[in-house]
Each structure stands twice: as C-alpha cells, then as structure tokens.
C-alpha cells in the first residue's frame, strides 16, 4: 500500500497571506474508506484538492503523506506519489490540443510502459461505462459540458489509483451518469487497488444515501462529523 497516513500539520493557506482560508490545521485524514468532505461556500474545502495536487502550496505548515512532507520531497519525488492519486476537478482541465481519448491515455502513456493496444483497450472500457466511446476523437472544446465532465472524471480512474479525490463530481452529470460514477468507484474498490476516496461535494441527496464518513471544513479548521456534532 502506498498511503499509510495523510496528515495536515499546522497548515495554513490563503491566496492572500493576510487572509488565510484555513489556519493552524492539524488533521489526520481517515483512510481506507470513502469520505465526504463538506463545508459551506468559501469554507476552503476545494483547497484540499488543490493542495494535494500540488497546484498550490501551503502558506504555512506541512502536508504529510506517510509522515513525509510532500513539499520537502520536491516535485520529481512527489510525482511518483501523484501517479497513485486520481484527481477529478474542474480546475484541472483537459488538454485542448489533444483528443478526448488522448487526454485519457496521457497518464498511461507517460507513466507506464504499456503497449498501445493495451492502453486503447483500457480507455475504451472506461469510456463505454459512460457511453462516450463514440466521442473519443473529439477535442474537448467541441463537446457538451456533461461529456467534458465525464472525461475529467474518467481520467481520474484511468491510472487505477489507490487514492481518488473529486471536487463536485456530480455537477453537469445526469442521473444515469451519477449512478455510473458511484458504481465505478465501487467496482474499482472491489477489483483494483482503490482504497481511499475523498468526495468534496454539496450534492446532499446523492451522497446522503450512501452513509459516508464526513469531515467538515468550517471556521478555518477541519473537523470530523462526530466532533462537530459533539461541539
């Protein structure tokens, strides 16, 4: 297993250093299950995915993966960890000068020494789950928002990751594809190495029925649902 723990230590982040969005955060993220990350608008819950993807760096504190600060590791070493995390968020868009299929295949072609036929077979399987295989040769700018979003989500699955982090995965998806998305997570947990899933979403009805573990971003801190209720 790649991830034995994931921890924020005295972490602060703000786009403006004088106005931190989260501050003095010490939090051990629960692993080995699907976690629903909640919080009101502007509570900073989306920062989690941006910090983990390396898109932004904390203004203070550490992000510890297996007790190692990811920003001390340097990008080259952290990239070896990133290979095991699937990110699905609108901020990490598709490459506009490549076809949808090439976008899906990019992490496989870059990181793995798979044969091209294996890559095509695997991406085809994933695309067929959402009935979007016929759109594989389109460029991202020429498809509907729902298709674009579907490929964003599929790209998170393509590397068969051990950890997945999604930000508002249900936005722009129809009911059928929402179900397909949740089924795919279940399938990957059962069949592949997927162990830790974090879903940042405001979609109450969709996630409420799954009875997931919840953590909250509130008052510039991160708390477990149980602690929040107790308070």
């Amino acid at each position: 297993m790649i991830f034995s723990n994931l921890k924020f230590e005295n972490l602060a982040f703000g786009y403006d250093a004088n106005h931190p969005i989260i501050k003095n955060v010490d939090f051990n993220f629960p692993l080995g299950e699907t976690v629903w990350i909640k919080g009101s608008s502007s509570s900073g819950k989306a920062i989690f995915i941006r910090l983990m993807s390396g898109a932004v760096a904390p203004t203070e504190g550490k992000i510890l993966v297996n007790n190692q600060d990811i920003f001390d590791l340097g990008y080259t070493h952290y990239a070896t960890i990133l290979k095991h995390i699937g990110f699905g968020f609108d901020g990490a868009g598709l490459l506009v000068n490549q076809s949808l299929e090439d976008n899906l295949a990019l992490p496989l072609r870059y990181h793995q020494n798979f044969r091209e036929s294996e890559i095509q077979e695997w991406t085809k399987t994933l695309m067929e789950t959402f009935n979007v295989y016929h759109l594989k040769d389109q460029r991202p700018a020429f498809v509907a928002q729902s298709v674009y979003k579907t490929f964003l989500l599929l790209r998170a699955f393509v590397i068969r990751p051990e950890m997945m982090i999604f930000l508002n995965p249900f936005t722009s998806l129809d009911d059928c594809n929402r179900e397909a998305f949740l089924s795919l997570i279940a399938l990957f947990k059962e069949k592949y190495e997927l162990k830790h899933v974090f879903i940042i979403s405001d979609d109450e009805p969709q996630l409420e029925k799954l009875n997931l573990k919840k953590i909250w971003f509130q008052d510039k801190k991160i708390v477990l649902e149980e602690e929040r209720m107790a308070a």
Partner: protein
Amino acid sequence: METIRNYTQNKVDELAFSFFEGLRFLHQTLFLTYLSFRNFFILFANPVDNRGKIVMIFKTVVMQIYFTAVQSFQLVSFIALITGSLAVLPISTGLSLFGQADLVGKILIAVISREIAPLLTAFIIIARSGTAIASELGNMQVNKEIDTLKSLGVDYTSFIIFPRILGGIVSLLCLNYVFNLMSLGGGYLVSNYIHPFSFSSYLYSLANYLKPLDILVTFLKCIGSAFFIFSLSISWGLSVKKSSHEVPQVTSRAVVWCLATVMFWNLLMSVISYLGTNI
C-alpha cells in the same frame, strides 16, 4: 515587487527598476530552461523505465519541428528568394562596374550567410512560432492545463518546455540553411539575368570565400537565437496568471524580448567573429 516600485521617484529610477526586473525575468527563464534540460537528461539516463515519457517527449519534438520548420518552409523560401535577389542586384551591378565581379561570392557570404540569413530566419520564427508558443502556453495557464499536468505527475518542464526548445533549435538551423540555399540561388538567377556568368564560377566564387568560421558563426547565431526565442516565449506564456486578457499582453512582450535578444545576440556574434578575423 510592486512595493519596491513605489520607491521610484523619477524616470531614471523607473528605468533602473525595469532593467533589474528584466534581469530577474531572464534569470527565471534561464533557470526554467536549465531545469527542463536537466529533467529530460535524468529521464534519458534511464531509458528502460522511462520509455513512455521519452517517446512522448520526442513526439512533441517532432511536432514542434513540423510546426516551426516544415510549415514555415514556403514562407522562408519566398522571403529568402526575394532577399537574395535584392542583395545580389546592387552588389553584382556595382562590382561589375569596377571589374570585380569575382568578389560577388565573398560579399554574399559576408552579407547573406553570416548576417542576413540567421537574423531574418529568426525574425520569421519569432513571428510564426514565438507568438504561437507564448499564446499557447498562456492559454494553457488560463485553462489550468499546466496544473493538470502537475496533478497527473507529468513533469511539465521536460514535457512542455524541453521539446519546444529542442525542436525550435533544430528548426531554426534547418530553416537557416534553406534560407541560404534559396537566397544564394535566387541571387544567382537575378545576377545571371543582368550580367550572365556561369553557375560553376558562381559556385566557385561562393565556395572560395566560405570559411569554417562563417559556418561556425552562423551555427552559433542560430542556436543562440532559437534558444532565446523559444525559452523567452515559453517563459512569457507561463507568466500568465489567471485571465485570458493577459495572453495577448504576454505575447507582444515575448515578441519584443525575442527581437531585442536575437538582435543583440547576432550583433555580439558578428563583433566577436570580426574581431577574431582581424586578430
């Protein structure tokens, strides 16, 4: 940096601030370029494990050569033909008046091969590829595509920067030789029309005066120009923060910087080579 700028009191201060700000940007650009080459060679040192990465990088190099060299071939050929004709016309006419027609080759080598070809080819590349790369990378920043690559564990320095610079250097070298061929060929056609003389004597005249130093100087000019054009265009493109309105701004800045550095580099190389010749 904006707070430091507040201390400027007059035009001289503003000029000094801009100069040092420029040096800072140049430093960042050179370091980013160094990182891209370093990271590529780290991958290249272990080709078995990094086969996929190396193949993808070289595909991008090939695409860059296609976009820069192959697609510019006609434009460069056309401009070279006109330039060669325009240069040869007064030179051959003037020299013939003094009975020095055999010096045409010497002057063409000195003017076209050493000075005009590397400079004009670089200008064409700036206009076509420098602007394209600055706006492409600027838009990639706006669309968060660079962040995407980072989140996928793709090292953007070796994946985005390195192939563009390498492809650009190869392209500029090739286009420079195309320019030479077409301009000297075009020059012959025009001069032959006005003052007929044999192709073999024209070739002999060129070959007689073409020295290894000329080839070396042209080579260094092209490599340096391509390096500055592509690294600066990339760096300006990546300097876009969030908004698409920044893209045309950085593109025009990239063009200005590329023109200035290319002209300075060509001048520097010419001065050094002529000093070397005199010594």
